[in-house]
């Protein structure tokens, strides 16, 4: 957006504004100078989410419990799928839900953050990347609560995660990368094409069932396995669950594939976003 460049004038201008059509973010440093605003956006989102609710912050705890409860009922109860030995189905789904909710919330919130703040985008300048990034921060709060619940359940039921637990932050980060990558592309497109608003929730709903959130890759029919493995979320979900409750670990090549996928998608997201950023105010 702005390059602090030097010109012939004695003191260089603080900011130079020029036409720009680039696939790279204008000034990554600028994101840092705007960090306070990023935090304020995140704080605003968290405050607003629960301010007018009767139960308030209790929802932070209720939502993951209800979510995991429903999946347990459908997959563990109605479909009668087996959970890995020694692990109650509820604990198993809750572990999957930590990863899944993070993924779906980051995707949903980051993609709608531009359109949701259209008034601001039209009238004030700040690096637009702040908006999707701030949604990641506000989602971290929800993830932390689900995680705390899970840890509590693990303590009660006496399940010990293995050494793999130290890899948890990596899995978590990759899930966020993947989600943010999708969110950035969808969000940038949504500014011009509101169709995305309708497509995305359906796609995410589909992914919920197409990914091993409430079942293991092991319970997938063998001849359809490759299809599931194409989905990068599969390895990330299995990986995160392995780190948390010691279920089966995804194979090394599957983990590598998912890692590459997430990193490349995030990079692509940043590029698409940067390319379209300058027009946001004109078309939103």
């Amino acid at each position, binding site marked *: 957006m702005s390059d602090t460049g030097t010109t012939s*004038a004695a003191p260089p201008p*603080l*900011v*130079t504004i*020029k036409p720009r059509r680039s696939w790279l973010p204008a000034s990554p440093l600028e994101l840092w100078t705007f960090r*306070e605003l990023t935090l*304020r956006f995140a704080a605003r989102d968290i405050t*607003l989410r629960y301010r007018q609710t009767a139960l308030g912050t209790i929802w932070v705890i209720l939502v993951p419990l209800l979510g995991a409860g429903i999946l347990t009922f459908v997959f563990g109860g109605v479909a009668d799928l087996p959970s890995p030995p020694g692990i109650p189905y509820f604990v198993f789904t809750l572990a999957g839900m930590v990863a899944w909710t993070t993924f779906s919330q980051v995707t949903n919130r980051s993609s709608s953050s531009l359109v949701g703040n259209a008034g601001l985008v039209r*009238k004030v300048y700040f690096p637009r990347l702040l908006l999707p990034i701030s949604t990641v921060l506000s989602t971290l709060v929800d993830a932390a609560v689900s995680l705390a619940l899970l840890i509590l359940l693990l303590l009660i039921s006496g399940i010990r995660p293995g050494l793999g637990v130290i890899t948890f932050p990596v899995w978590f980060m990759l899930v966020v990368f993947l989600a943010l990558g999708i969110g950035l592309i969808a969000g940038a497109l949504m500014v011009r094409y509101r169709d995305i608003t309708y497509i995305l929730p359906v796609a995410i709903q589909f992914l919920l069932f197409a990914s091993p959130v409430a079942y293991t890759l092991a319970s997938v029919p063998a001849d359809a396995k490759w299809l599931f493995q194409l989905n990068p979320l599969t390895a990330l979900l299995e990986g995160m669950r392995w780190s948390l409750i010691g279920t089966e670990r995804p194979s090394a090549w599957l983990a590598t594939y998912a890692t590459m996928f997430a990193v490349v998608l995030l990079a692509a997201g940043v590029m698409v976003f940067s390319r379209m950023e300058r027009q946001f105010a004109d078309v939103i």
Partner: protein
Amino acid sequence: MSSDLAIRVEGLGKAYSIRHQHNDHVTLAQVALEKARHPLRRSEREDFWALRDVSFEVNRGEVLGVIGRNGAGKSTLLKLLTRITGPSEGRIDLWGRVGSLLEVGTGFHPELTGRENIYLNGSILGMSRKEIDRQFDAIVDFAGVENFLDTPVKRYSSGMYVRLAFAVAAHLETEILLVDEVLAVGDQDFQKKCLGKMHDVAVDGRTVLFVSHQIASITQLCDRAILLDNGGISFGGPVLASAEAYNASMRSAPAMAERRTTGPLRIDDIDIDPGPVSAEAPKKFRFSVVPISDFHVPYSVSAHVVDQRGMVIAQCDSRLVGLWLDPATPQDVTLTLRQPWLLPGEYRVDLFVYSSGVIDSIQGAGHFTVGPSLPYSGAGIDEALALSTVLPDFLYSASSSAVELASTPQHPGIGASE
């Protein structure tokens, strides 16, 4: 010299592409379909240059006025300077942080409390937490909302709301400040306070770009002004000369070009006698309002008489006299302006049609000249007229005077100015 620069704009241009198919809502499906049918054809577009070849410099500490009518490119210029949108060509160099008072209350959230909104809005406008901390009391004090700091702003009266919003924006401490016209908000007292604050900002050595089409406030606050017309700078120089050029351009402009909206009702058939008329003669403005499309809400009309400095000296709003018009049929409207008496000079008439908002408006719907003869019995001494905006109808009496001085006595006490 260059070290004294605050803003340098060189060959700045901004193009918007206008699609030719006239789709208001372009959907992904439509785009995909179009691409599938004609994979090689690029969609037909035409560039509309909202701003082109604009170059100017502003020195540090200078207050530069930017004038121009609606659609001249003022807001595009502001959007480029604030980086809300990017230029298509040219460049802008800025020596200093830019703050803008473009939209009061941007980012205010009704569910958040006054305190939370001050911090959020301050950050959005580019203030750091430390700056806001330091200015917090001043902001609260300026807005007068001490007792409601922890109340969600949705419970504020609209007056309190705009006061708080303006207060945050007014306490920005950037080196360069962009100020847009519609800033004086709230009740009269607060408007005065706003104008005072803007004046303070203008005189305390900061660089200010003041944008308006109220020439009166521009001439008050700026030394120099640029006149934007049709996306380019048509005049730049001392503020009075720019104001003169603006008025000249308003007179020469084809009246219909100044139309603001294309709503369901249109002003048509304007008949305004260019004069010269005498100061005290009733002025008659005739126009008609024609329904274009279905509209069922009674509407009101208004005519503004604007003097050479750009000040609206008479707002003849039909709501004040209880006139609401029926939108079903074309209406011929005649407005007779009996008072105030007008100073000799040139006047512009702007016409408006309102329902719940402006439905149609024409800036410079007509012009008329008031002749030099005065409705007073005494001599027309220039000095004695210099401070008035309109001609007062007044009467003196004193215990012992050599000659009885009186203007025509039939409308005593109207429009007296000090």
